[in-house]
C-alpha cells in the first residue's frame, strides 16, 4: 500500500512538470511497437483463454469419465454383493440319518439366511428337504417334509415372516451325490434353499 501513494505522487509531479514546462518534448509514441505489443498480449490472452478452456473441458471430461467409472464400479460392486448373497443363501444344511433336527453347526448357516432375509424384505425363498436312499421311498417324502419345515421354523422363530418361505419335499427322488456309501448319503440328507422372487439385486446383511 505504501508504494501506491508514492507512484501517485510521482505521477502528479510529472503532470505538474509537464503542464508547467515550456517546450513540450516530442512524445509521439512508437505506435507500431505498442500495437504489436497489445496484439501480442491479446493473442497471448486469447491463447491462454483457449488453453484454459481446453484444459477445463479436458478436466470436465476426465471428471465425467471418472464419475461414470465410479458409477459403473459401484454397480459392479452391487452385482458382486448380489452374487455373494445368493451364494450365502444357497448354502445347504445337512441332517443325521432319519432325523430332522437342525445340527448345531448349521444354526449359524440359518442365522445368515435370517440376516439376508432381514436385509432384503422383498425376498421370498423355497426350502426343499431331501433324504438319502436308505429309508423307505414314500416315508422319505414325509421325512424330507419335516427337514424343510424344521429349517423354516428356525428362520421364522428368528423373526422372519412365514409367508416369505415355502417348503417342499423331494424325499430321496433328487439325490445330489449318486454313490451308495455314507459319504454320498451324508451329502444327500439336506435342505436346499432357492429364491422364489425378489432376488434380482440383494443387499449384504
Amino acid at each position, binding site marked *: 500500500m505504501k508504494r501506491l501513494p508514492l507512484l501517485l505522487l510521482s505521477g502528479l509531479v510529472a503532470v505538474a512538470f509537464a503542464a508547467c514546462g515550456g517546450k513540450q518534448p516530442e512524445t509521439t509514441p512508437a505506435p507500431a511497437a505498442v500495437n504489436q505489443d497489445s496484439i501480442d498480449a491479446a493473442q497471448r490472452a486469447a491463447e491462454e483463454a483457449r488453453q484454459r478452456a481446453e484444459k477445463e473441458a479436458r478436466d470436465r471430461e476426465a471428471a465425467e469419465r471418472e464419475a461414470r467409472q465410479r458409477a459403473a464400479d459401484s454397480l459392479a460392486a452391487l452385482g458382486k454383493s448380489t452374487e455373494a448373497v445368493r451364494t450365502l443363501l444357497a448354502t445347504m444344511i445337512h441332517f443325521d440319518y*432319519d432325523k430332522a433336527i437342525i445340527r448345531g453347526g448349521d444354526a449359524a448357516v440359518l442365522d445368515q439366511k435370517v440376516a439376508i432375509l432381514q436385509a432384503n424384505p422383498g425376498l421370498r425363498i*423355497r426350502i*426343499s428337504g431331501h433324504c438319502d436312499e436308505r*429309508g*423307505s*421311498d*414314500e*416315508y422319505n*417324502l*414325509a*421325512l424330507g*417334509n*419335516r427337514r424343510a*419345515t424344521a429349517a*423354516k421354523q428356525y428362520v421364522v422363530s428368528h423373526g422372519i415372516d412365514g409367508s416369505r418361505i*415355502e*417348503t*417342499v*419335499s*423331494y424325499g430321496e*427322488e433328487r439325490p445330489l451325490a449318486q454313490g451308495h456309501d455314507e459319504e454320498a448319503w451324508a451329502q444327500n440328507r439336506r435342505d436346499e434353499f432357492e429364491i422364489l422372487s425378489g432376488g434380482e439385486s440383494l443387499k449384504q446383511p
Partner: protein
Amino acid sequence: MKRLLLGLAVLSAGPTVRPSDAQDTSAIDRGVRIGIVYRPGVRPGMVVLPVHAPALDSARVILARDLDYSDRFELITLPGGDSIRVTTTASGARPPAAGATGRTGGGGAAAATTLNYPLYQALGADFAVAVAAGSGDSAIVTVHDVAAGGVRRELRARLPALKDPGFRLAVHQLADRVLEAALGVGGTAATRVLFVMDGKVYSIDQDGADQKLVSSSDHQAMSPAWAADGRRFSYMEFWQGHGRLFLQEVASGKRAPVATTGQALDFTPAFSPDGKTLAFSRATEEGTDLYTVNIKDGCCLQRLTVGRFYDNLSPTYSPDGQRIAFVSTRAGLPQIYVMAADGTDQQLFAPFDYGATGSSNAPEWSPDGQTVAFHRDVGGTLQVFVLDVRTRAVRQLTSVGRNEDPTWAPDSRHMAFVSDRSGYRQLWIIDVETGRIRPLLQKSGARLPAWSPRLPEIASSTP
C-alpha cells in the same frame, strides 16, 4: 438259502412220491426247475399238450408259462418234448369215464377230443390241457381230468391275432379260466404290475412281457396304485414341489388330476374297494396326515388323522372297505397302525418291540383280507414281513439282501417286491406258500410295484 439248497437236492428225487406215480416213470423227464422249494406230491401234475399251428403254439407257450407261474401245478414235459405228436380220438369214440364233469360238447366237435388217459396218468399228470382252433378267431381250450378219464371243461374265447395288443391278455385270461376249471381257484395270469422307473410309471404283464410307459408327462412320478375294478389307477407327480394325484383309465390312457390335490405334497393314493374314495397322504408344515377325497364327485376332502408332532402316511384299505392300515411315527419310528375307514379307533396293528424293532413301512392289505404285507428295517436293511390280521402275528418272509415294497397279487398268495438279491434293485415275484421266487423285470432301478386285480376284458381292447 438252506431251504433253497434243500429244494435243489429234492429235484432229483422227483418220480417216487405221488401215489399215482407208482408205475415205473424213471424214463420220464419231469422238467428241471432251479431255485425253488419243491414239495413233491402236493401239487397236481399238469401237461399242456403240444399244438402245431404257429399262432396257437404262441398261445400255448404263454398259457403253459402262466400255469407254471401259478405255482399250483407240477408241469410235466412229455417225453420227446414239444415235438411229440399227440394223437387224440374223437369224443364220441370212447365215452368219458364216470365222474368226468363239465361243459363238454356244445357244438365245437373239432376240439371235443379224448386222450389216452392211462398213458397221461402214468406220466404223473392229473390234468392235461389242449389248445385248438375254434370257428373264426376263437380258440378252444380243453381241460382234461386225467384221473377221472374225461373232459373237465371246454373253454372258448375270442383270440385276437398274434400281433394284436390284446392277444396276450386274452391268453392270460384263458389261463386263469383253466386254473378255475381245474382247481376252482382264481388265478393271477390276467394281471399287470405298475412300477416306477426313472421317475415314470410303467406297466408290465405278470409274466414279464409287454413293458410299456403309462405316465406320459415330463413330471417326476411316484406311488402308482390300482382301483379294485382294474379299469383305473392313480399315481402322484411332482408339480412345482407339490405332489399332485392323477386318475388314469387303463383302456383309453386318459388322465385327470384328482380334485383338491396338488396344492400341497399329496402322495401314496389308495382306492377304496368301491372306487368312490381315494385315501392319500398329505405333507404340510403341520406334518404328514391322511386324507380322503370323493373321486366320484371330485369333492369333499376329509382329514382322517391329526399328527402335529408325528407323521401318518401310506394308507391301504381292507378289501371290505371298513378299515385302513397305515404308517405312523407316533411311537418314534414308523410302524404299522390300523383305524376305521372314517379315521376313528386308531390302534397299533403290527406289534413291535419299542427300541428294538426297526422302522416298518409300505403296508398293503391282501385281497383276501387276511394279511397285511409290509417291510421292516432289520439290522440296517429292509425285509418283507406279513402280518396275520386275525392273530396279529408277524412273520418275516425274506432274508436275502434288501427286500421292500411288497404288493399282493389278486390270489393273495403271490407277491411282487423290490430286491437287490441279484446285485441291483429289481422286481421279483414270490409265491408265499412255496417260497418260489422269480424275477419279474431284470432292469435296475424299478421300484414301488403295484399289482393289479384281475383285469377286465375291456382292458385288452386298446393298448
